[in-house]
């Protein structure tokens, strides 16, 4: 009897598996705490509980997450809001499933002391990421005629140490801790969020086509991811264990201290109000302000429609 029951169970499981079409999820960078909620959702079985068969595939230096969703390699990606809006405007309509980061984590690390505003850096040589994320700084440069010499780079740390650049753009959850771990005490650190440029950043995206075809899957993925992030918020050390596991599997040169700092900074940026519970919702006002700035400085031809961008459900 037991034997028949086991065969029946296996048959039901295989039938269920056949229905659970695999979803490929790609974060926008190599494994790190920035994506802890998704790793936790997978490791804790939240995706499986939702009936989703999720595979996490990280991008490579030649194939970023936006390329991967564009060519269909990935179904769901994470992206910064600006990149998602620009992609939506340019060639591929994206739908925001979940807005994780509510605030700007962009900072400017300067060798010069007492830098209080961007105007203090006029004419300086400033490092910026080769892969982007620099639209806001460029807008400020253009708006204030700062004549900044932007130096595209992959790794700002050694250029900064060598004295090849005067300042560099950085993320509060990433490069800022790397500088600290290298014993560097910056002359000044400017937080963009404190100077009127506090825009949402990381979010969860799918192509509009995928969204229309799989609205329930998208909803389930977003809910499971949200559950993953909530768990991470309450179980930081356990979450770090999971992150470090992914880090080691991908041979990412980092350490637990670095990832702990990053996780704390990311979770703080998730909060709508400091100390509050994240809403995971894309703020329409911030979205509209960003829309206006991107149009003004020509990053997008026309405003992205909030309702469509958010799947028409919010």
């Amino acid at each position, binding site marked *: 009897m037991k034997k028949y029951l086991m065969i029946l169970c296996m048959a039901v499981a295989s039938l269920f598996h056949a229905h659970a079409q695999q979803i490929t999820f790609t974060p926008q960078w190599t494994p790190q705490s920035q994506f802890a909620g998704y790793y936790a959702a997978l490791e804790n079985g939240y995706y499986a509980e939702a009936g989703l068969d999720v595979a996490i595939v990280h991008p490579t230096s030649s194939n970023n997450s936006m390329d991967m969703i564009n060519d269909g390699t990935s179904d769901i990606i994470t992206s910064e809001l600006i990149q998602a809006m620009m992609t939506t405007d340019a060639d591929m309509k994206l739908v925001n499933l979940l807005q994780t980061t509510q605030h700007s984590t962009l900072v400017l690390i300067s060798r010069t002391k007492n830098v209080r505003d961007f105007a203090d850096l006029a004419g300086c040589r400033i490092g910026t990421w080769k892969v982007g994320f620099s639209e806001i700084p460029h807008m400020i440069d253009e708006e204030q005629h700062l004549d900044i010499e932007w130096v595209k780079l992959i790794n700002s740390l050694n250029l900064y*140490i060598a004295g090849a650049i005067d300042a560099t753009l950085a993320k509060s959850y990433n490069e800022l801790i790397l500088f600290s*771990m290298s014993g560097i005490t910056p002359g000044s650190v400017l937080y963009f969020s404190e100077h009127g440029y506090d825009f949402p950043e990381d979010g969860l995206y799918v192509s509009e086509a995928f969204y229309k075809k799989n609205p329930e899957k998208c909803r389930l993925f977003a809910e499971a991811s949200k559950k993953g992030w909530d768990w991470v918020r309450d179980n930081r050390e356990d979450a770090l264990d999971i992150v470090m596991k992914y880090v080691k599997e991908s041979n990412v040169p980092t*350490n637990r201290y670095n990832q702990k700092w990053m996780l704390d900074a990311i979770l703080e940026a998730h909060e709508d109000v400091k100390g509050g519970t994240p809403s995971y919702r894309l703020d329409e006002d911030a979205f509209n302000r960003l829309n206006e700035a991107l149009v003004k400085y020509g990053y997008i031809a026309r405003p992205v429609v909030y309702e469509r961008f958010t799947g028409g459900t919010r």
Partner: protein
Amino acid sequence: MMKNGRKFKNSLSGRLTVGVVIVSAIIFTLTCTVFIRMAANKVREEATKHAHSELSNTIHQIDAVLNAVEIAVENTAWLVPYRLASPDFMYSITERMLQNNEFICGAAVAFEPHYYASEGRYFSPYSYRDPNGEIKSKQLGNETYDYHYMDWYQIPKLLDEPYWSEPYYDDGGGEMMMTTYSKPLYDEYGNLYAIITADLSLEWLTELVGGIQAFERSYNLMVSRNASFIVHPDHNLILNETIYSSTYGEDDESLKKMQDDMVNCRAGQVLRDKEGGKFFVFYSPVETTCWSVAIVCPRSELYLGVKKLRSLLIFLGVIMLLLMMYLSYHGIRKVVAPVEDFSDVAKKIAHGEFDAELPKIQSQDELKDLHDSFEYLQQSLVRYIDELKSTTANKERIESELRIAQAIQMGMLPKSFPAFPDRDDIALAAKIVPAKEVGGDLYDFFIENDKLYFIVGDVSGKGIPASLVMAVTCRLFRSIASFHDKPEEIITSLNDSLSDGNESNMFCTAFLGILDLKTGRLDYCNAGHNAPLVIGSNGNVSAIPVEPNLPLGLFNGFPYQGQETKLEKGTMLYLFTDGVNEAEDMEMNQFGDDRLVSLLEKNAGAEPKEIVETTFAQVQLHADGANQSDDITVMCIKICQ
């Protein structure tokens, strides 16, 4: 236990031994502490020198390799501008670099984007050594390996100067952890057109730094300018951790100093206190690249020799102290033993054994002095005792003689009372108490032809001289009085006899009277004595008026004046010496005339004997234990009805 049952701690030798051992232990401990501390400082200095010497040697070797690489690049770079027309020749240049320097594991001439229109954006001829050691070449750049954004390309380009990259894991070219020396190349217009590079595998660096064996249990590490570990026994830390991240949560000054020194190209050493124990970290920078090489050594190993030395010293110290205790105790015992013998001798002397044998002392030290002192003491005691015996005998003899003299003196005075039992017309009582064995007071009386002759006197001074004068006076009174009828004649005769040949100038006050028992007439003569008191039958007390005259014995031929009075029946005549009214108590207060009069008034009705005894009792009561300073004499005569 000691001699005489004395405990170790209560014996002089025991206490001295403990004192010596304690002082020795303190001196030894202090000496050892200073010595150990100096030794530890010396060891630390030597270890520091040794560690920095090892670091210096290693750094020289690293610098030599780095310089060789720099020279190889310099020696090759000049060729590039001459062969720019032939892009493929660049492969020959990079191969040549590898051929000329065995440390170089890869070399490239990386051109600016689109420098050669035919080669496109990426053109970077690159030569490397394959696993078999053969030199191979390939074009390095492509879309997935955009070398233009690599540190080794971008930094020298921005700095316009050669640059040693921070160690990195190259997964686009060399496929290993390496560092790259890059030199920017400029055309005749000063425009950069390429970066020429030489890669240095860090395997040799790991072997070199890891191979330093400065101390038995030390290990070595190396960090780059960005504080990342390049060499470390724990390979997981290499390029993953920094000296800041690996010490997260630790916060102490030595750590901060070490971190600050290491990332700022400074040499130094710190003592770190971690959970695993204390460690010395010696570090020194590679000047060329500002990497820091460090030797980490457990403090315990550095001080192992000092620790052994300390254990040996403690062991030797304990042995030495025990030996010192034994030797000191027995040495002191030997020295102190005669003292105990002297103690025994002292006890024998105390028991009268003055000739007790003294311990033999051969030395000439303090014990010899003590021996001589004891010997002198014995001799002195014998002599003193002899003298004391003699003195005591003399004293006893004198006392005996004095007792005899007292008996003789008292025997001269009438002391049988009632003095005249066969007569009812007179009652007389007298008493004398000398201040010493013999005294100078006197009294005497006798009746002849119904006349009472009486005298009371007081010789100047006390003791034997006074007693002799008293004896003479008494004898003269008896012999002279029977030949005269008048008191002044008797007194004058007495004075002449006493003053004749009185070279010692002794004198005697006296009151002499002749009382006619039938008539009550009293003839009297006073020679400087207290006026007697008359106690009337009605109880009144009054002094007899007396001429003062001079005491007896002072001036031969002095004309004494006689006086007379009449005593009624029932009255009493009270005679006394100044030992009564001038008797003193402890506070030197005298008995006084008033008190004497008052006493007589109270006892006016009493019999002479009772009045005499009461007087002595009251005087004794007044003295209240004070020494009697003068002879006391009282005589009381009552004319009966």
